């Protein structure tokens, strides 16, 4: 094995493979940092070229791209609360509050160092597991997957903070959102409203953008300040790196989680960071600052999402079953250049396997160095005034949301989740449980069904299942019990305290009743479906509606109108400077969306940026530079890279004009 390892290293450190790897890493880092343009697209674009290469350069290029796809995506997550990709959503929960505290540099230092250590750990695990690759992969079936998903969902209990009922309702609604689309058990199209758009479910990217990015930007526009509350960037990158080493045991645990998620094809690449975040929040001592800018909330997800890549190589190498979609593309290229997965990769072709491990190692070191080098410059974004950040983030959000399926419906879906996210933030609802539930909800239903259909309830006695139940007890129940015994103060996680006035309680109750209405409507729609497809909706409505009523009771039981009429009480939050600013940003957003629909992206986005910057006192120079950046992003990413088929804007359609960037 040592000979093969040295042979693999010698092959990779040749000029041509090293050059290709560097190009791959650089491109991957740029793609990962741009919201809406995933590394998957980069791999697809590179595929025709990669299949013309020799095996080692092919490995260097593609694996170099894939190995670091979750490194640079931290930048937008921390700076503007926009997930660079689905794998960096959990980083927002503590990363953005760190930027708000002026600790963006520290967040980057911690994120990139833990990303690198996670990636290296994944490579080491891959190396060590070579002799036992196959039994590892085969140890997990649907029943064990189910319990892992339950474990992940148990994070909801932690993420709800001081609003447990609201957190549970959010999770119920999240699982309901996950049921949208064609049900594989019956092929029934659930909640498709008669069209095809929702057949593949609701895009997790749209949910993440809407829930987190827009509410934060509205908050910033109302507050009219920079992202960072302080004028300095506080402790630097080095402090974040030290944080990572101070929390070395957390890094190892979360890397193991990442590797494990990668090993199991089917769990999906988006769950690793949430699993790790939940694990950290459940098990770390003094966890009261999770969700408010605790550096461990950044270290945990970032350690796991790069470690996942090493894990995902295990089933790919062992059986030719790619552990992720990006590895499916790589596998096609590897086959084309003559690298066949299976037993040979552990014997006669061990040299290729070792080369892959070395690429994981080298790529992680290079990507981390690049990202750390750029951290200082990027961190300064958190000090920019709101009139630069808000318009740029909003246009990035609208353009990125359109990248989900390239239809107007994407914008509509994005707006719906933006509204939900805004109201959740306004009324003090924890948002992470909803997102976690959307990510894991479909898996929960799938693996519960498969386990029950295949084994009956006997699956609960499987050794692996019992083992994971034990893990859940150790990591969740025991800490909760200890905390209960010590009567420590309940943690307040994630959300700022809502404005707890009678008016806000009544408005909040109306929002809760709206969610109850959604659940009841879903139940009514599901009555027409076969029981197999409808059962989960019955359960969700059965649990969610009583919870909603309970929450309304909690909100209203002590609400005293203090002699004011209901109308006057409800109108109170709609007046004052804060309300005026809120209305203003809503009008700006309405104008942005209306502009996109009426005259298209290419005219609206730069115009919007210039108008917003100028309206709030920015210089013409700043406005034009920012507008140019927005246009460059749009044309570069969407026209040149993706070649988007733009829908014809309504005014162009009405007057019969051809959209000037529209081809066919």
């Amino acid at each position, binding site marked *: 094995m040592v000979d093969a390892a040295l042979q693999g290293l010698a092959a990779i450190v040749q000029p041509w493979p090293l050059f290709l790897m560097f190009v791959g890493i650089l491109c991957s880092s740029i793609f990962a940092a741009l919201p809406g343009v995933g590394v*998957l*697209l980069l*791999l*697809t674009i590179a*595929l*025709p070229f990669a*299949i013309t290469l020799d095996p080692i350069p092919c490995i260097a290029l593609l694996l170099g791209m894939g190995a670091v796809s979750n490194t640079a995506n931290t930048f937008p997550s921390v700076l503007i609360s926009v997930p660079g990709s689905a794998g960096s959503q959990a980083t927002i929960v503590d990363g953005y509050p760190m930027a708000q505290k002026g600790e963006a540099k520290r967040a980057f230092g911690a994120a990139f160092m833990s990303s690198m250590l996670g990636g290296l750990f994944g490579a080491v695990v891959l190396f060590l597991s070579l002799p036992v690759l196959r039994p590892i*992969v*085969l140890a997990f*079936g*649907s029943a064990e997957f189910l319990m892992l998903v339950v474990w992940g969902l148990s994070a909801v209990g932690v993420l709800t903070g001081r609003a447990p009922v609201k957190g549970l309702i959010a999770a119920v609604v999240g699982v309901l959102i996950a049921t949208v689309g064609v049900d*594989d*058990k*019956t*092929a*029934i199209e659930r909640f498709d409203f*008669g*069209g*095809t*758009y*929702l*057949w*593949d*479910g609701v895009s997790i990217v749209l949910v993440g953008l809407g829930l987190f990015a827009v509410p934060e930007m509205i908050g910033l526009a109302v507050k009219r300040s920079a992202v960072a509350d302080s004028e300095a960037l506080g402790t630097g990158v080095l402090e974040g790196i030290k944080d990572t080493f101070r929390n070395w045991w957390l890094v190892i645990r979360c890397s193991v989680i990442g590797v494990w998620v990668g090993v199991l*094809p*089917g769990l999906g690449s988006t769950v690793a960071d949430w699993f790790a975040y939940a694990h950290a929040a459940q098990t770390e001592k003094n966890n009261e600052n999770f969700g408010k800018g605790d550096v461990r909330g950044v270290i945990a997800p970032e350690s796991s999402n790069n470690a996942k890549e090493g894990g995902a190589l295990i*089933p790919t190498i062992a*059986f*030719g*079953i*790619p552990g992720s*979609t*990006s590895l*499916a*593309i790589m596998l*096609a*290229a590897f*086959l*084309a250049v*003559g690298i*066949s*997965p*299976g*037993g040979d990769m552990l014997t006669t072709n061990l040299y290729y396997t070792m080369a892959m491990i070395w690429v994981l190692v080298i790529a992680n070191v290079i990507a981390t160095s690049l990202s750390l080098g750029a951290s200082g410059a990027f961190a300064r974004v958190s000090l920019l005034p709101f009139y630069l950040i808000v318009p740029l983030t909003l246009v990035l959000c609208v353009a990125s949301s359109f990248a*989900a*399926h*390239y*239809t107007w*419906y994407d914008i509509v879906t994005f707006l719906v989740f933006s509204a939900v996210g805004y109201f959740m933030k306004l009324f003090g609802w924890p948002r992470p449980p909803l997102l976690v539930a959307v990510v894991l909800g479909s898996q929960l239903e*799938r693996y519960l*069904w*498969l386990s029950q*259909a*295949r084994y009956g309830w006997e699956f609960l006695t499987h050794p692996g299942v019992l083992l994971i139940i034990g893990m859940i007890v150790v990591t969740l129940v025991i800490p909760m019990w200890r905390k209960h015994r010590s009567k420590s103060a309940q943690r307040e996680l994630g959300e700022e305290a809502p404005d707890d006035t009678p008016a806000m309680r009544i408005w909040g109750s109306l929002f809760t009743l709206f969610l109850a209405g959604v659940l009841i409507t879903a139940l009514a729609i599901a009555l027409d479906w076969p029981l197999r497809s409808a059962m989960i909706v019955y359960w969700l409505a059965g649990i969610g509606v009583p919870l909603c009523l309970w929450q309304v009771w909690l909100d209203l039981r002590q609400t005293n109108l203090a002699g004011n009429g209901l109308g006057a009480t409800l109108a109170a939050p709609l007046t004052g400077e804060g309300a005026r600013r809120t209305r203003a940003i809503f009008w700006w957003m309405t104008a942005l969306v209306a502009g996109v629909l009426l005259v298209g992206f290419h005219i609206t986005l730069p115009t919007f940026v210039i108008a917003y910057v100028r309206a709030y006192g920015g210089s013409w120079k700043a406005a034009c530079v920012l507008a140019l950046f927005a246009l460059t992003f749009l044309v570069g990413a969407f026209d040149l890279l*993706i*070649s*988007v*088929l733009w829908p014809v804007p309504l005014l162009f359609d009405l007057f019969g004009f051809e959209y000037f960037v529209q*081809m*066919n």
Partner: protein
Amino acid sequence: MSYRKTISVVASIAAAAAMQAGTAGAQNYEGKTLNMLIASNAGGGTDRIGRLFGLYLEKHLPGKPKIVYRNFGAGGGKIRAANHFALKTKADGYSLMQTDSSVAQPHIVRRKVSQFDPAKFEAIGGFNAGGSVIFIRKGQIERLTKSGDPVIVGATSGSRSWQAMLVWGKEYLGWNVKWIPGYKGTREMMKALRQGEIDVMATASSKRIDGLLKDGVIDIVAQEGVGYGTKYQARGAYPKAPVFPQMLEKKGISKLAWEGYNSWIGSSQVDKWLALPPGTPKAHVAAYRKAFDDVVADKAFIKLLHKTFSKDAVIIKGAEVAEIVASIQTVSNEAIAHAAKLRKKFGLSSR
């Protein structure tokens, strides 16, 4: 050559194709940018073959045009792409679509959301991995025809075309099978098969089948075969594996049962196919078909096709694709209803 195994061609179609080829020289695409709509997410199987073919189409179309690729992925992508292609894409010879067999399936074409007629698309050509092969975990094959605990069939949903073989096997050959639909995709089922969670599945991918055979995990039960109607033959990679339609023929089934079977599985003969929009001028159609013939005669392309798609890939010329797609659309509603009835009978989706 062995890789140029093609399905039967009627003489009139060949003659028509030859006449069209004669007009191909009139078209030149120099300086043009072609748009290829891909009815799949970036990175999917349909996407990969579309981009691979596009790479060589750029070389073989007169004037060596450039191609840009536009993916219609999630969000009902295949139907959305076909609707767009039929209703909005200009038939000017500069747009083409890479799609798959599902848009030729009559029960999909006849749904309200489908606003296209695949028979009106101008087919350029297509590829077929060689037909799906049903396999069972090693040592379990006898259970298939014995009473007792049924063998477990994994499925992503009830409507995957290879499921037709198992449904017809249960109904007409007495196979003792039980379905568990709900798996996310083929790779999850492959893992479940190795674990013993399911006993039976199918795929057309020779890479996957060979991997399982090499590891001693499976025995082959039957194969879909290459052909259409009642004329099927074994695929090159698995010449000894029983051809399922021949098993049915031997058993003797009604005309309606045959038609129902073909309504479900027939379109898989044009697994991945390329087309121009309805109404594209004949000269363009001829140019693209000629280019397709040149691409599939290019040894470099064939080498990559075998490595990335299937080692015994079947190449289907444009006129033949058009004939198969049109023929499938003539299936009666009764036949589609028969297939739906059987699916429902066995607890699978009737859609």
